[in-house]
């Protein structure tokens, strides 16, 4: 069994389950009487618990199992759903998520998780104990919550016994089986487990395997080769006292089982070739068929299936009796009745001497609960065509994206090639053909890029999902009532954009909850509904995704913002007085600004909106704030659909090529030098009746060169948007647009102000891409 694959699958599904559980819990809170929601919630927890059972994740299983028991009661209305119960469940699921993270990272749960898991499990079980069905619940809580360990439990035969071929010694009496699990550090105690096992008196059989899986690949380096990893089972016919004396130094590491009883009853000498285990299981299944047939009202199909099972069972059990039984079964009519088949089955049971043990392994976990009677029978939901979904690791998609990025850049070298063919090699015909081919490749590359971007597109709802929980928790903490309304959660954007959106959004929501929405009493006094509303609206506008976060709270108090900004020395008092209210509220985006009179643990200590703005601008987005005092605040985030490919305008200045992000560019104009007005140091020009301030790019980059006009004496002006205003950048020349893959600056260059990053050009050169916003500040 490939454990790694199974574990990966487990982690993926566990995450899905936890996400579904979190979402459903909130749904149920809104609509606690909806059976369907409750069943759905229960099933997610149930699935998670079932999956845990495949691994030795006891701390996780303990918590999830407690949650399952709790929800089972809620589902059957023996326990009322309450906010406190939901809190406990949510916390338990958060804890489970941590454990799953550990599992993903290390393949196991770290030691010491037991305490936390027991705490969470008992917190959940406390709800059960408080409820009416306390008697069974207490018994339940007192019992171990982990599924029966196959090595212990009440099984007559420990599972390790099956590793020994005891049938071979069926004729012997006094056979003793034992399992010896040497402790990890045994080599440092001078023990020699292998020798100890080999020299057992009266040794009949000895089998060894690793106590846990041997390391593969990279794990091998980290493996401590001095720790013992042996699991030894053996059987002997020496007297027990003698064997015990042999293992006297490691007695606590040895488990014993008297194999004689099992061997004698399970393997009659007449059928020596068939192992006792097989015979036992066959008899149990035979018994199941009898029980099945004994039930009234079975359809013909059930009888036929039981008959087939009986036939198959017989064919696996060898011996004269079985052959005879097979023959007599074949003689029964094709449409035999259930009762006749039952009579036949009872009188022809194979190996009557075999112990008949129910297939059910004894398990006393839930002595009093009547689960079978109440398992859900959900069959009415309309069948829908199953969605075919392919799950692919993210790194594979990222790799594909990278390759396509390289391809986009590589295709850009064709126009250079065409140019060289024409200018250097005088091959005009060839140049035309290259250009024609370029057009084809360009189109395919565009389609390819579009297709892969579609793969990376996620609905923004993915990030909104967790906000329900966040708002619920925070508003409860603050004693406020808040409804969250989400619209347009199907709007799609690139995965990276979505992911980098989560933190800023959380920050914004916290601010809205903390500073925006008022306490219910205040709201009532202001004539508003006691419960505030936060709306998150997402939509696509051309190639941008717009996300608006609107609250109907107090709004931003412009006067207070002015005062705070002056008080904190962020702005001069005179300057503050001249600001309009709309401009004043924008001051909250300044670093170090906070109007909170008290430092709250929610909105932090003044690392406020500037963090949001920085984060949004890092992904080429923008933030706008509008606020009406007393009516609420709206934050409008404008984000790119994708961060992968950026279009830049390439300009030349002082002999250098530089890129300017296309989405900031308003227009490119050529202005005659005489139309440029000088006021002291500043230069301006008038474009369509509006005054546009001009800045020379060379000055901004501290390059000592004047802008070069063209032959007609005109200067190239790149008009860009900056803080809702147009600013003209004086450059030497425009060189056209280009698709690039923007790589952020790394290492020592990471702190460089004024540059968004670099890109590789088609001719192999590196293009520095400007960040005009930083540059102009």
């Amino acid at each position, binding site marked *: *069994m490939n454990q790694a*694959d*199974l574990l990966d*699958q487990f982690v*993926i*599904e566990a995450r899905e389950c936890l996400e579904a559980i979190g979402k459903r819990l909130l749904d149920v809170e809104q609509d606690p009487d909806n059976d369907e929601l409750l069943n759905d919630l229960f*099933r997610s927890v*149930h*699935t998670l*618990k*079932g*999956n845990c*059972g*495949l691994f030795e994740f006891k701390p996780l299983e303990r918590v999830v199992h407690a949650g399952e028991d709790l929800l089972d009661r809620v589902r059957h209305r023996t326990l009322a759903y309450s906010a406190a119960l939901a809190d406990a469940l949510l916390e338990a699921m958060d804890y489970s998520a941590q454990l799953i993270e550990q599992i993903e990272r290390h393949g196991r749960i770290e030691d010491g998780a037991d305490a936390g898991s027991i705490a969470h499990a008992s917190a959940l079980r406390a709800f059960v104990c408080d409820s009416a069905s306390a008697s069974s619940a207490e018994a339940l809580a007192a019992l171990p919550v982990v*599924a*029966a360990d196959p090595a212990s439990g009440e099984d007559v035969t420990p*599972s390790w016994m*099956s*590793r020994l*071929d005891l049938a071979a010694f069926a004729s012997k009496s006094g056979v003793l089986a034992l399992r010896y699990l040497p402790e990890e550090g045994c080599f440092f105690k001078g023990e020699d487990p292998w020798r100890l096992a080999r020299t057992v008196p009266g040794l009949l059989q000895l*089998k060894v*395997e690793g106590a846990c899986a041997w390391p593969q690949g990279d794990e091998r380096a980290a493996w401590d080769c001095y720790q013992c990893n042996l699991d030894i089972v053996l059987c002997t016919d020496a007297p027990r006292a003698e064997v015990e004396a042999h293992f006297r130094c490691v007695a606590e590491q040895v488990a014993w089982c008297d194999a004689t009883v099992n061997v004698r009853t399970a393997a009659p000498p007449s059928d020596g070739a068939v*192992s006792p*285990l*097989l015979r036992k*299981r066959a008899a149990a*299944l035979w018994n199941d*068929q009898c*029980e*099945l047939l004994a*039930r009234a009202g*079975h*359809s013909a*199909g*059930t009888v*036929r*299936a*039981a008959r*087939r*099972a009986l*036939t*198959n*069972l017989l*064919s*696996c059990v060898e011996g004269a009796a079985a052959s005879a039984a097979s023959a007599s079964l074949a003689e029964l009519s094709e449409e035999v009745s259930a009762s006749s088949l039952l009579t036949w089955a009872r009188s022809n049971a194979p190996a009557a001497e075999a112990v008949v043990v*129910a*297939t*059910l*392994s004894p*398990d006393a976990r839930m002595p009093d*609960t009547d*689960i*079978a*009677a109440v*398992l859900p*029978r*959900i*069959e009415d*939901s309309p*069948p829908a065509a199953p969605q075919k979904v392919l799950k692919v690791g993210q790194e594979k998609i990222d790799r594909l994206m990278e390759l396509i990025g390289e391809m986009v850049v590589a295709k850009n070298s064709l126009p250079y090639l065409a140019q060289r063919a024409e200018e250097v090699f005088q091959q005009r015909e060839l140049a035309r053909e290259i250009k024609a081919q370029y057009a084809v490749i360009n189109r395919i590359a565009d389609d390819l890029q579009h297709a892969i971007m579609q793969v990376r597109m996620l609905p923004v709802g993915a990030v909104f999902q967790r906000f329900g929980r966040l708002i619920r928790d925070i508003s409860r903490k603050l004693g406020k009532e808040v409804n969250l309304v989400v619209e347009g959660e199907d709007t799609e954007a690139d995965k990276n954009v979505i992911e980098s959106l989560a933190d800023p959004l959380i920050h914004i929501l916290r601010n809205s909850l903390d500073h925006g929405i008022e306490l219910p009493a205040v709201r009532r006094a202001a004539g508003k509904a006691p419960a505030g509303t936060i709306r998150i609206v997402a939509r696509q506008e051309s190639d941008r995704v717009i996300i608006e976060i609107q609250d109907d709270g107090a709004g931003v108090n412009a006067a207070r913002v002015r005062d705070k900004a002056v008080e904190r020395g962020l702005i001069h008092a005179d300057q503050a007085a001249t600001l309009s209210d709309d401009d004043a509220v924008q001051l909250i985006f300044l670093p170090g600004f906070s109007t909170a009179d008290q430092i709250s643990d929610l909105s932090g200590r003044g690392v406020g909106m500037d963090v949001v703005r920085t984060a949004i601008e890092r992904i080429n987005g923008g933030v706008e704030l509008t606020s009406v005092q007393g009516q609420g605040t709206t934050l409008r985030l404008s984000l790119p659909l994708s961060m992968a490919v950026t279009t830049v305008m390439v300009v030349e200045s002082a002999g250098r090529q530089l890129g300017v992000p296309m989405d900031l560019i308003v227009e490119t104009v050529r202005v005659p030098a005489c139309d440029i007005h000088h006021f002291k140091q500043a230069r301006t020009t008038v474009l369509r009746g509006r005054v546009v301030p001009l800045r020379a790019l060379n000055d901004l980059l501290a390059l000592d060169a004047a802008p070069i006009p063209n032959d007609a004496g005109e200067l190239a002006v790149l008009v860009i948007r900056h803080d809702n205003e147009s600013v003209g950048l004086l450059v030497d020349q425009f060189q056209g647009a280009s698709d690039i893959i923007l790589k952020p600056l790394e290492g020592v260059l990471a702190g460089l102000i004024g540059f968004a990053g670099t890109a590789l050009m088609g001719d192999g050169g590196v293009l520095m891409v400007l960040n005009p916003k930083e540059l102009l500040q």
Partner: protein
Amino acid sequence: MYRILVVDDAATVRMYHRKLLSDAGWHTEEALNGVEALECVHAQESDEAFDLYVVDVNMPRMDGYSFVRELRRLELRHQAPVVMVSTEAQRQDVDAALDAGANGYLVKPAQPLDLVLSAALLLGDREAARAATQGVRT
């Protein structure tokens, strides 16, 4: 080759069961719930019908009990045995499975040997049954 349909809504469990069963030399297919399982049954050509069903109990849309009941009602040339696998280990759970028409019952997580041996016996695959019990794990 014997054909087994694994029905479970948990992907991890499906993967686990299919791996164990295909390692024992059988062909496996999967369905996510009772409705899908019935669709699979209908989609089979009669000479390629499933030889065994390994079915979970608690599933969305149609649970394991309902699936077995529906299956047994079908006019199939081959009514194959069903093994139910569920986390519950009470006598009444076994009874409920037998009431529905299942031919065997295992408690989740099914031990590899239990699952493979039960499947081998219900399939009538003598070689696999013997291989499963004869110390393959040395």
